[in-house]
């Protein structure tokens, strides 16, 4: 099962990279969301997928043989929260940029770096 999930994570990341290469900021943002999901899947596979007892023990009970690895879930939960917050911020930013600059095509967003900058002074 691990192999299948590894391939799935790879497919997610490949699709994300395809979207990241686009010029529209919206596509880039979807690519970023997809990239985050692919990486979360990868962390899950990295912690090994097993069919063991859940890692929740009541008091006084000893470990009943093999239990599942709880750490990847903690890592993924943290990564999801952070990724979601950043994604929301960037989505809002894209909307503000669209309102102020008038486009979300990266090629035409040249306010910070004008396309024809002044030539450097040749003497002084």
């Amino acid at each position, binding site marked *: 099962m691990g192999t299948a999930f590894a391939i799935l994570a790879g497919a997610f990341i490949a699709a994300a990279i395809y979207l990241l290469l686009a010029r529209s900021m919206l596509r880039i943002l979807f690519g970023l969301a997809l990239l985050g999901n692919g990486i979360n899947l990868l962390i899950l596979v990295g912690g090994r997928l097993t069919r063991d007892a859940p890692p929740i023990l009541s008091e006084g009970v000893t470990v009943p043989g093999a239990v599942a690895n709880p750490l990847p879930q903690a890592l993924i939960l943290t*990564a999801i929260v952070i*990724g979601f917050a*950043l994604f929301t911020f*960037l989505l809002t930013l894209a909307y503000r*940029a669209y309102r102020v600059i008038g486009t979300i095509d990266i090629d035409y967003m040249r306010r910070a770096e004008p396309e024809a900058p002044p030539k*450097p002074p040749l003497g002084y």
Partner: protein
Amino acid sequence: MQSAPTSPTDWIVILPVILPLLGAALLLVLGSRIAPPIFAFAVTLVVGVAECGLLQHVLTAGPLSMTMGRWLPPFGISFTADAIGAGLALTAAVVTLVVLVYAQENPAETEPRPALYALVLLLLAGVNGAFLTGDLFNLYVWFEVMLIASFGLLAVSGTPQSLDATVKYGLINFIGTSLFLLALGLLYGALGTLNMADIIGKGAAAPPAIMASIAALLLVAFGIKSAAFPVNAWLPASYHTPPAVISALFGGLLTKAGVYALLRILVLLLPLSRDLLQPVIALIAGATLILAPLAALAETNLRRAIGYFLIGGIGATLAGIALPNLSGIGGATVYIVYSMLTISGLYLVAGTIERLTAETDIGRMGGLYARHTLLAILFLLLVVTVAGVPPFLGFWPKLLLLQGAIERMPDAAALPLAACLLLNAFLTLIAGGRLWLLIFWRDRPQPKEAGQELAPLGPSRGKVGLGAAAFLTLLILLAGLWPAPLLSLGHAAAAGLLDPSAYIAAVGLGGGQ
């Protein structure tokens, strides 16, 4: 294994993170009822004092570690301060203090927004966390904290320029931290641990091909964060758009955290993978060293040109990673400290220049020397410091790096890197000298229309910013004339990075305890 509770004095390792985080939360809740600038300054001052104590402790008694939540290492999240982490955290606090004072010069940019000071404290918390953490996943979290705070600071002025810059900065840095997380997932899958001290031991025994691929991924991720050559385009696209105070804060703190992470990971955690990646690192370092000052030479926007100086410094630090001996790593550490101070100083002076001339383009500046001699002297001092002219601070880390290159001489990369370092100093001096001549020395070109004469510095508040910049420059000057403390810090940091036994013992993973 350690099981005794941490002694109260050892809590000092967590204070530099907790205090600014709490301060930021308080500022957001209480808003302008508690005079945000003074409150932020006080919090940062306390953080700086705590970090002085921490550095003192680390230099005399070795690395200090604390693990959270009664989970023993390697399972709990460790905070581990060693010489390089504590030294850089202290420098970050000094830069933040100066920046907070400078921000009072032009209150219109900052005063109506208590959230801005909260974001500055949040940024400081993120940077300190990155410098002091002993866990790779925790490092990721601190990088995200830094990223969130810097998004806010970059976009806070809301001009079309800064929104455009935030889009580019935000997208590429989000991709960078995502790649870092990707590498962490693979590392966890390969080693089953993310505790730094634990990785040192387990990484050496793992298959070198797997470790080297992960290290390469981390090199890309932190290359993006620190604006190394092929992935540096976001920095000159964004750092010149916010108010100069914020440029100074970013230039001092953000990229340095990225290059620090590279030092920590490639030299301390995965030295075998570093050896495999050596040609790549040397190539990146050389290209960054040469191309950045050339770009600065062709640049007409003042703050963008300073951004290229900053990138050149990243190349010098990478050259230290490519020369892993006591001198090379020590040089890289001292270089980070020096670059944090000097680049912030340059951005601050640039802010005053831009305010006085009401221009951002050096082609339309000029004649400032007659009006503001002190400003001209400050800028000139900072420029020769950046270029590494002998008695100034920039000279000492470059000397250490050159010494590191000579000590590694049979290595194929050593001689080219030494040449690149010297050429970088030469080109930076030309580019910086040209900036100084154009801004200060030549006559002012004809103003486009009447009434665009030079504005005099305001009577009271205008001098605050100049005073802050002058204080920082004086600090740099003194550190350059009396470099022994900084050099011994660099030596201690390099010794700690090259020999991990003290670090592992401090975390409590020393074999068989």
